[in-house]
């Protein structure tokens, strides 16, 4: 079976708070530390989900990404984990797209690659935290949409997803083709293997540019007239409670909270 994983390169969310700066012109957050981007965490979970299917079935995994200024080491990580192909849809036109345009570009790219049996996406990208692209993509492709998976099982033409819900889970079922979004509850993504790293270094990604796609992104732009970014102030005057040692600090804290009527 054919699986497409949608993955995105993002600013490392572990960048210390003080490392974030706003680029007013591109309306983007950047790191002033110059640390490299990473693969979106949930997309690593998506790659892991695809690999588990490949472990048990005969499957070919193609990773697709829309963006600009790709860092090859970052984008090849899924290959070193065991994915088969990488398609990069790149160019300045794809910088900082809104969710509808991103979904539209993915839709056009996936049609060119060939419609797969299964598409796996992350539940959200840690840049704009939109959690929308996969759902819109499913609408565009008219694929069955199964979200927030912590487990996927396939049987002939049927897919079952264990979906995370508050205080429990659901079992969802549909036919293929389908699109699934995965959550971190799926479990840790595997580490790249030595063999994987070797084959990633030899593998060239297939590159699409704007002109290769039959897409007019301007027309699809959603109707937000303007977006402004700011960095929120996070400064409470924290009162530190300090005793002669940690034990006394603990006791004094309890007394303080009692005094304030908080406990």
């Amino acid at each position, binding site marked *: 079976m054919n699986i497409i994983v949608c993955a995105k390169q993002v600013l490392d*969310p572990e960048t210390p708070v003080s490392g974030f700066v706003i680029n007013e012109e591109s309306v983007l957050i950047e790191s002033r530390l110059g640390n490299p981007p990473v693969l979106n965490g949930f997309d690593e979970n998506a790659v892991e989900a695809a690999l588990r299917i490949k472990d048990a079935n005969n499957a070919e995994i193609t990773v697709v990404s829309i963006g600009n200024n790709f860092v090859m080491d970052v984008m090849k990580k899924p290959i070193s984990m065991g994915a088969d192909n990488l398609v990069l849809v790149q160019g300045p036109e794809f910088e900082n797209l809104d969710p509808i345009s991103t979904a539209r570009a993915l839709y056009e790219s996936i049609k060119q690659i060939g419609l797969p049996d299964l598409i796996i996406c992350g539940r959200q990208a840690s840049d704009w935290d939109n959690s929308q692209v996969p759902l819109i993509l499913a*609408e565009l492709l008219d694929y069955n949409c199964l979200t927030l998976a912590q487990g996927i099982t396939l049987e002939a033409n049927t897919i079952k997803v264990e979906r995370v819900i*508050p205080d*429990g889970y659901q079992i*969802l079922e549909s*036919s293929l083709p*389908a699109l699934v979004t995965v959550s971190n*509850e799926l479990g840790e993504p595997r580490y790249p293997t030595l063999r994987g790293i070797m084959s990633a270094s030899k593998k060239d990604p297939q590159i699409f540019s704007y002109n290769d796609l039959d897409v007019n992104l301007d027309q699809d732009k959603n109707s937000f007239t303007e977006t402004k970014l700011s960095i929120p102030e996070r400064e*409470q005057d924290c009162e530190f409670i300090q005793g002669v040692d940690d034990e006394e600090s*603990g006791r004094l804290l309890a007394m303080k909270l009692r005094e304030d009527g908080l406990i």
Partner: protein
Amino acid sequence: MSHTAVIIEQGHHNVDETTQQILSLANSLGDETSIVIFQPDNANLSEKFTNLNCDQIYALKIDSVHGTTLPDDIVISSLEWFCKDKNVDLILITKSAWSLNIAPRLAFRNKAAYAHDCIDIKIQGNNLSCVRPVYGGNALAQISIPADTPKVATVRAGVGQISEKVSNKIVPVIELEPEIKAKDLRVKILKTVTEAPEGPDLSKAEIVVAGGRGLGGPEPFEKLRELARVLGGAVGASRAACDAGWIDHNFQIGLTGKTVTPNVYLSFGISGASQHMAGCSGSRNIVSINSDKNANIFKDSKYGVVGDWNIVLPAFTAAARELVNEN
């Protein structure tokens, strides 16, 4: 004349603070406000809402073949139909694990602009201005949507003031039967399994005791549970602690976990990453214990102790037990 509809999450049977907050927000934004509920099972559900401050309640009656927990496809199709039938300008839904699956597809189908996880929404000139945290809360985006565009927005729980108390007038309940086609149902729910953890409900608790990676293992969470029992609170955790398997993911607080709004949020060994704070910054008093005096969480805390939880926690619990038992 603009029409705002507040969608009540399916299976959500109570009028809580969050419901009142989002209703007040709706009333501040448009001329006409509706509440929309689903009636797969409970025919009396609408009675609970009838003294709220709105123009009408629409009860969407869905065929019982779809069960009591409605599949996303059915919810989306019925709301798509409703928006067209009633000319809705703005849909408001509390952001939750449920609305996450519904709102983007509904917006797409109705060619509406979608604002996700807003912490502020107001009218500015002719536009709707929404503020939403992005980059895990490290930045805020302000977006502006023209008046004549249909809109869908999800609102973070706990946002907004409750501006009006319940009214005495009885709000009319209008039953509607949305048009749903057999082919709309594509993904079935075979089973729903939920088990509420012991103790008070995390999302409603007045005191939350939360632990993070700094606790180093599953055993310390037993100590947090003990403290929670002493204080009558609920236990929560950071994603790092949940991913490590020290505590179940149901206890995760944050951007992709639960949102809590307690009076007191007591954190032990949590660094205060913005994605974690996204789930607890609505707490009235954050109190933090962390061995690193530069930990970010102190920037959001009212009180802090720089120290080792191994020592601070037992001393705090013992003292709290005495103080709480005094009267």
